[in-house]
């Protein structure tokens, strides 16, 4: 099908890789998208080798994410220029900017080739091999210019430039929205990110596979979704090193990850209502009350309230806390109280007329646009796309359990909230089934870790990309090993990053108050956006 476009083949652990020339990227991707049905550009990875720079486009299908293909684009080391894919997949726009920012590959024909995470004035590309970390840098701090108009009113138009953030109560952290207002409506909005870019990829590349990387995933999506992120790393590293996880550990993983999902969705709900109602009172406190209960359970299990560091390659670090009956009882109590709590939320939030007026039909994004932007997770399912990696690309113990993928067809802020609230119910189902299984597990078969060598050294140049369903969507990790006990390249596919890139499409032409609501409904966590 690709015919002349392909100049070589590579085999990654997760997919076949086709090597193409740097000036034929768009054509290749278009064929793969339109004729082969690979409509999901999951991630763009850039890296540099000694003799070349390389960009990898990881493609999947929304209908069946187990079908994957990689398009590998090597470019010249002296002058790394490669054709952009942003005309074929809109999600490539931001991802290529990030690749340019951190690795230094230039994309020809890209509409907006600027740095995205680091300050404009930064010198050098930190993840390329010749970067000197000790050289001085200058970071400027100036008034932002109006991209459409001068700040004064003239006869032609009266747009006003407004900065929202980076220190603002409604931006959920340190996000800067460059907003252009036309009266009360948003004429243009551009998220400016990078205020929390903590060099996570560099940190992971400096750590050994066995123990030193696992603490970092907790700090990507820090809304207590730590275990979901750890699972992303555990999954990719176990694939890379061929480790089988015992069934008992898989059940514990599934249970604890779903507890994390409940905690993360509760925070999303509380802060979303904080944005809409602007009150620091009832709803927020309700959500926090339920989170406290979940955090207590997780603390019993892992010893930590937020940064769990509980998964290990090949299993988990501890068995359930003794006395086990007490732990089960505590978790069951929480699950028993949950329906009532959700009923309260529905009384308080979803059936509230004002809330409905504020959220129904605002921040709409149709399924096709969402797919173009690579949006995943509750945001995509709120647009009616039935895509959930827990079911479509099974891992852990999910395929043995009885639960449903939640979708809503509203495509707006309201349905995104509903998806999260109903997902909490599904998570509760999963947890209760896991508890039943764990309770009857024979005592001498409680194997919590596979036998993993002390030092892991995968074969050089093994490449693998794996994703799991995090709290915000598809959280993927690409690892290339270089034969040592540390990854040669570690790239994180962050769901929030892609979800946030769709903000402009969602809020153009709407009121600025709805922009805030839309941002809340996306549930971005800046630690994961910037990494």
């Amino acid at each position, binding site marked *: 099908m690709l015919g002349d476009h392909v100049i070589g083949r590579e085999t990654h652990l997760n997919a076949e890789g086709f090597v193409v020339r740097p000036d034929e990227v768009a054509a290749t991707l278009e064929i793969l998208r339109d004729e082969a049905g690979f409509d999901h550009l999951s991630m763009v990875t850039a890296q540099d080798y000694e003799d070349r720079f390389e960009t990898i486009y990881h493609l999947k299908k929304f209908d069946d994410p187990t079908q994957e293909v990689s398009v590998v684009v090597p470019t010249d080391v002296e002058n790394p220029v490669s054709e952009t894919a942003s005309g074929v997949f809109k999600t490539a726009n931001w991802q290529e900017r990030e690749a340019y920012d951190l690795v230094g590959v230039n994309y020809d024909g890209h509409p907006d080739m600027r740095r995205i995470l*680091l*300050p*404009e*004035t*930064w*010198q050098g590309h*930190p993840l390329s091999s010749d*970067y000197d*970390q*000790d*050289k*001085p*840098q*200058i*970071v*400027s*701090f*100036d008034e932002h210019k109006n991209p459409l108009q001068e700040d004064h009113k003239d006869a032609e138009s009266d747009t006003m430039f407004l900065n929202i953030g*980076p*220190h*603002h*109560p409604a931006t*959920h*952290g*340190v996000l800067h929205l460059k907003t252009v207002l036309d009266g009360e409506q948003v004429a243009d909005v551009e998220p400016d990110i*990078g*205020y*929390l*870019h*903590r*060099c*996570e990829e*560099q*940190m992971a590349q*400096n750590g050994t596979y066995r123990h030193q990387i696992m*603490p*970092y995933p907790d*700090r990507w999506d*820090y*809304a*207590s979704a730590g275990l979901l992120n750890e699972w992303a790393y555990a999954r990719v590293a176990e694939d890379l090193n061929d480790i089988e996880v015992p069934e008992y550990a898989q059940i514990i993983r599934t249970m604890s990850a779903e507890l994390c999902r409940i905690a993360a969705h509760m*925070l999303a709900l509380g802060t979303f209502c904080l944005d809409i109602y602007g009150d*620091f009172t009832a709803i*927020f*406190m309700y959500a*926090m*009350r339920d*989170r*406290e209960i979940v*955090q207590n359970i997780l603390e019993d299990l892992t010893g930590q*309230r*937020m*940064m769990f560091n509980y998964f290990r390659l090949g299993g988990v670090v501890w068995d359930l806390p003794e006395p086990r009956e007490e732990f089960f009882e505590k978790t069951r109590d929480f699950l028993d109280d949950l329906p009532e709590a959700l009923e309260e939320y529905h009384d308080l939030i979803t059936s509230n007329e004002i809330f409905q007026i504020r959220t129904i039909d605002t921040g709409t994004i149709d399924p096709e646009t969402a797919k173009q932007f690579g949006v995943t997770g509750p945001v995509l399912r709120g647009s009616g796309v039935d895509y959930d990696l827990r079911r479509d690309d099974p891992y852990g113990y999910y395929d043995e359990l009885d639960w449903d993928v939640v979708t809503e067809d509203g495509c707006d802020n309201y349905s995104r909230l509903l998806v999260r609230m109903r997902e909490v119910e599904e998570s509760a189902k999963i947890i209760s089934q896991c508890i039943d299984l764990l309770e009857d597990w024979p005592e001498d078969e409680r194997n919590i870790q596979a036998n993993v060598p002390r030092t892991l050294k995968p074969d050089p140049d093994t490449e693998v990309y794996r994703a799991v369903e995090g709290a915000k969507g598809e959280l993927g990790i690409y690892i290339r090993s270089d034969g040592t006990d540390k990854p040669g390249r570690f790239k994180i596919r962050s769901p929030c990053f892609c979800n946030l890139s769709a903000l402009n499409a969602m809020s153009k032409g709407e009121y600025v108050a709805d922009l805030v609501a839309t941002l809340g409904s996306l549930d971005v966590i*800046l*630690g994961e956006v910037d990494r």
Partner: protein
Amino acid sequence: MSNEPRDTIRGSTDAQTKTREARMSGAVDNRFNSKLREAFGSSPFILTKFDKFMNWVRGSSMFMLQFGIACCSIEMMHTYAVKHDLDRFGSGVPRASPRQADVMIVPGTIVSKFAPRMKRVYDQMPEPKFVVNMGSCSISGGPFQEGYNVIKGAEEVIPVDIHVPGCPPRPEALVYGVVKLQERIANGESSPVTVKPYEMEQFSDLERDELVEKLADDIDEETLVMRYNWADSP
């Protein structure tokens, strides 16, 4: 009143008359008589040092800046919310504007792009102002210390009074840190100002070295900049 908790709260629906006398008698309303007031006896005056009084007042009504950076801010929200309830200590009113706040809790990693903005927010707070560092990142860079983009502690940029270690500190730890700060304020103690290597300055004031020459075309002379000498940072 029994000490047993009640299942439901049902009281009489009659009008409350308990305080009617006090309200309508026209004399001094005796509901204002606190225990403290009774302890003073007949004298309505107290004698104290103005500074001491002011410090006590300051320590007992702290206005926090609503400021979330990273993971620690989630734990900070829990500190404000039910169960931990920082408000009990007279310090739980988060203000969204720096102009109404006098304590800044720095909850998270400071990176190069954010440091000038944080300095601006700190500069906008009215004196006297205090800073509580929450978590390892704002103390030293924490787990991200080695990163190419991470400022190694908020103290590089602003002076800090209290450090609360942890990753993240539990809400109890943050409460302890804030209460310690209140104690210090009430006693009139303040922290020595650290030498801050990274100040904001105008671009034209920088030494004309290679880097400045290179950026001269992109940056306006009057723009405020921060220059990071990464090699000198701890």
